[in-house]
């Protein structure tokens, strides 16, 4: 459900950038989404299609690239990718960890015509 709120934020940013860059239409918006985020791709696409109507991104495609959850162990320094939401160091068993990647919710790039 929060996908709708996220899409609104995306469209605001897309419109700002289009204006700054002098775009007349946007054909593609690419997102980077960390796997910690609970984003349902179908809901995102649906929300985007609905909310983009009548905006500069009216006929744009929304592309989503997912970023694995990358962890640094504060105990032994090991770095690893989280699988099955298991936040336990594979090397030493510690749960004292820092998340390096996987929390992203970023607009990576947009494509359009001037």
């Amino acid at each position, binding site marked *: *459900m*929060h996908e709708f709120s996220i899409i609104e934020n995306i469209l605001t940013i897309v419109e700002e950038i289009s204006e700054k860059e002098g*775009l007349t239409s946007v054909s593609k918006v690419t997102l980077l989404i960390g796997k*910690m985020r609970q984003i349902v791709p179908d809901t995102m696409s649906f929300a985007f299609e609905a909310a983009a109507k009548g905006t500069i991104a009216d006929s744009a495609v929304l592309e989503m690239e997912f970023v694995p959850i990358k962890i640094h162990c504060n105990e032994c320094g090991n770095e690893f990718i989280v699988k099955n*939401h298991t936040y336990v160091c594979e090397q030493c068993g510690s*749960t004292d960890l820092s998340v390096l990647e996987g929390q992203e919710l*970023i607009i*990576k*790039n947009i494509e359009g015509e001037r």
Partner: protein
Amino acid sequence: MEIKVMKNILNANQNKADEIKQHLKEKKVLMVNIIGSPGAGKTTLLEKTIESLKETYSIAVIEGDVATDRDARRLQKYDIPIVLINTDGACHLESISIQNALAEFDLDKTDIVFVENVGNLVCPAEFDIGEFAKIAVISVTEGDDKPEKYPLLFREAKAMILNKVDLIEYTDFNKTEFDESLRILNGGLSKFEMSCRKNEGLEGWLDWLKNTHAETAK
């Protein structure tokens, strides 16, 4: 043409949340964000917590509700400042409405602000509202698989309350599996088991609040 952007989508919400955090720190106010399913016992938890702490602490409450004022009305009997935020259907609170709500309080005279977020285990976990801690509230009748199904909340929370333990014998809730799934998700999580209905088992939670408030007031 392709334009490289690399911009954080929730920047606007995050910037406000950071402002709130800074402001609350200056005012030495502890704000906690209470998140759980509808019916988990969030409002009951607030009632019991306020009853126990209101002689010692100045408490204020922000009630997030989709459309009604029922929960806010339940808390009126305590004669504390309450701001109701009707999200008008939205599934979570955002920092802009929290900032407006906080402006209604005299923060110089406030120790703890409780925010009851909209009943939902998914969306509220995604939005920083400037709280010091997210508190996950879950009841035994919801089942022991909730951490696995809603990992972000249990990963982001600083404390977790398992409520309605008075009903556990009537359910198939498996405490061992529940604890293990929390350990692998968030080894640093503080955990409290209680029955808010019976007002039993709240001591650990109340101590946690007192200690956490003492830390913020330093």
